[in-house]
């Protein structure tokens, strides 16, 4: 458009230099096609690790960009509808990118084909490609805090106390006791430590020695709300190092504790009802 205007000026004023600039811009466009193309040729993309995310959060999808020959500058990456992110890759080197994508629904977040485009160097032309990296992120339900109506202890007749924890809430603790090797780090009272009272561990009343069961079937409300509540409690119980069992229709996980147990439970919650409960390990 601008070049056409310039050409008109050149013709009407019979000005050789105006012609020259017009032709220079035209030649630059042709040269730029090659540069833009080269900026994308030989770029290899690979999906890297993807961290799971809760609904409402931002999924961070890792990408590995490898240049096999040329330097690649200002490569824009993104999925349709999302913002493009610029990335530079030096010649014959690898660079890592992390793309954000809002996690809107529980389950596998599969953004589909990735758009890779380059407008470098002049922005006149764009080279682009749709790459299917089969990248996917696991989205856990959104944790929603709330009362658990029936946090049932398995053998709660045997125990005299601790079984009514559902009223008191898990956060109530008996007090602080000195730290011993083997205590979970996340139960350390950092505030007390900062006040110079030494390493103390929060000792919880309700939960000690009780094996808890989080049962989907004993909750009411719609499925997503129940899953969110369970998710919340999985996180809560895990944070205090409690042993618990997660019971979903047709699936019982635990009793167990620890990070791996947490992952398995959250995964089960995330994929609940998706038909491929243990798919895509």
């Amino acid at each position, binding site marked *: 458009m*601008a070049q056409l*205007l*310039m050409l*008109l*000026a*050149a*013709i*009407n*004023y*019979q*000005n*050789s*230099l*105006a*012609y*020259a*600039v*017009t*032709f*220079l*811009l*035209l*030649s*630059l466009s*042709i*040269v*730029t096609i*090659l*540069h833009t193309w*080269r900026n994308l*040729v030989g770029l290899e993309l*690979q999906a890297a690790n993807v961290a799971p995310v809760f609904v409402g959060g931002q999924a961070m999808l890792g990408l*590995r960009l*490898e240049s096999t*020959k040329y330097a690649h*500058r*200002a490569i*824009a990456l993104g999925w349709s509808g999302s*913002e*493009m*992110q*610029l990335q*530079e890759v030096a010649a014959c080197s690898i660079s890592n990118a992390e793309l954000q994508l809002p996690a809107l629904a529980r389950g596998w977040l599969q953004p589909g084909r990735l758009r890779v485009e380059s*407008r*470098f*160097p*002049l*922005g006149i032309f764009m080279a682009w490609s749709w790459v299917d990296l089969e990248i996917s992120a696991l989205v856990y339900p959104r944790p929603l805090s709330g009362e658990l109506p029936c946090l049932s202890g398995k053998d709660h007749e045997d125990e005299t106390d601790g079984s009514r924890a559902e009223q008191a809430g898990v956060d109530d603790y008996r007090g602080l006791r000195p730290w011993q090797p083997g205590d979970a780090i996340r139960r350390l009272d950092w505030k007390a430590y900062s006040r110079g009272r030494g390493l103390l561990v929060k000792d919880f009343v309700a939960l000690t020695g009780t094996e808890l069961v989080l049962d989907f079937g004993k909750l009411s409300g719609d499925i997503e709300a129940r899953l969110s509540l369970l998710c919340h409690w999985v996180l809560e119980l895990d944070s205090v190092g409690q042993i618990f069992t997660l019971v979903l229709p047709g699936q019982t996980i635990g009793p167990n504790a620890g990070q791996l147990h947490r992952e398995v439970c959250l995964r089960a919650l995330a994929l609940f009802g998706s038909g491929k409960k243990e798919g895509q390990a």
Partner: protein
Amino acid sequence: MKAAEVIPRNSLFWLLIVQFLVILPHLQYLPPWIIVLWLGCTWWRLRIFRMCAAYPNGWVKALLMLSTGLAIYVSHGTLIGLDAGAVLLMTAFILKTLEMRNRRDALIVIFLGFFAVVTGYLFDSGVLAAVYSLLPITALLAGMIGLYQNDSAGYRAPLRLAGSLLLQALPLMLVLFVFFPRLAPLWGMPQPAEQAVSGLAESMSPGEMVELSQSSELAFRVTFDGQLPAHENLYWRAITFERFDGQRWARSSNSYLAQEPKWEPQGEPLSYNIIIQPNGRSWLFSLDVPKIQADDARMMADFHLERRRPVDRALMYRTVSWPDSRREPSATSASLAASLQLPRQGNPRTRIWAEELRRSEPDPERLVQVLLRHFNQQPYVYTLKPLPVGENIVDDFLFQTRSGFCIHYAGAMTFILRAAGIPARVVGGYQGGELNPAGNYLSIHQFDAHAWVEYWLPERGWISIDPTFQVAPERIRTGLQQAMVQEQSFLEGDPLALHRYSGINWLNELRMAWDNVNYGWQRWVLNYQGDEQKQILQKWLGSFELRWDWLGIGLVLVLAVLSGSLALLLFKPWRSTPDLVQRLFLRYEKLLAGQGIVRQKHEGARAFAERAAQVLPDQAQAIRQFTGIYECTRYSGEPASPREMQQAFKALRDALFSRNHAKDRIH
């Protein structure tokens, strides 16, 4: 606004530099308030960048636009036309830079910048201006590149890339420039306003002619096809002055008459090319008697060439002249009447003297000879500082001061001839020219302006004579500078004029060389338009017929070849793998991939080899050996011979081959 659309710092940096570079050459004709506006806006924009100030809001923007529009109207009296348009473009460029926030705004600024550069060419298209304009163009490209580059790239990287892009685009641009067909103007455009161009005018008093000879400005340049005629034969006709009102000589009515008078080409013709500098006049210069090869120019009734439009940009044309031709041997008394016109009163002594001359010399030719002898023998002085004269300028000149410039002599002689009943007129033009030995062309400057006389005789037609030659022959033989050596008045009012110092050898050579460059630029670049392009291309093609459709196909082909070679240069396909060792390793990887063992990205050569050895226990030996040599070559620093590695590779390949055969046999 997306984060990616924000103007990066290095782009902003270059755009501000662009602004400086673009505005600088325009300063000579821009009103001074533009500088204030520009500095103010740049300062504001920098403060915005440092987060010290906000972007102008809608009201401020509207106010700025209105006030600048008003200021342009006040300083130019209009908002349309080229000059006001150029100022408008400049202010738009400055204001848009102030308010640009995102990439789109920056692109608009960049395109305005390119336009400003092109507009600059309409005012000045000389060599220096063209070379200078490479600076803003490069900076504009750097700004454009900066828009699509991360800040981390720094300020210099976009500039370097811009430079290399320009170099790569240059061959394509040259091809397009030479072969792209030039079209005639599609519609009329406003032209740059007349700057005070010196030159001959439609009517001139002797004083104005003297003033003109103080200017060292270039009038036109000439290249002769054959040998250069002698200096004293170079009488360049512009127009004839026929009407005399007692003070001024004015252009004749014949010179407006688009009717070619009768003449026959005789003798040896001279052919030459002329490039006129823009002078705002429509007459063209030529030696007598010319035939011009141009569609839009023709000969008028007084033998001068007239163009349809004024010369508002440098113009090149080709002319053939026959100096020996007889001009209008039979003319009607009606057409000659204008050449006998005299004011009713004034200059009585001259009239009486003319009457006496006619009585004593009834033959007009002899009378002319007597007159010339009079100028030659009486103490006349050829000078650029004629003594002041009174009301009767011819009387005072002939009988009192006897000092004058060419127009005094030509005017007085014409007056006498007319008073004696011989049709005569003053011819205005230039005489002589300066030869540039390197370029073998003549430059004719304003100080070469000259006036001479032509009178008419039955059967013989118009005859040119030059009374100045009788007084100052050196003026005609060598030029004004030599004629004024004694008086030292050559270009007196212009101490910086290089012509004054033509005695200094190196300076004169430098001036000539520079003039030669300018002439070449004008001839081969600026005037590469329309017919000129056709002629030059035809010369190259030789006997082939010049056809635009063939030329178009050729142009596309040449462009394709050029782009292809550029692509080769950029992609360097021959440099696909770095070295032989690496290439062998790639083949080794492929070989194992054929067996279903693919090296993972994270796997080093040894880990991969161990894995492969587990899968292929029979070939483990060969695999390990190859990998060992590879590692030695790559990492130990001592250059193991590639031949050894090649042998190991072959061994491995053979081992795998025999395995495949064994498998086939089992199946």
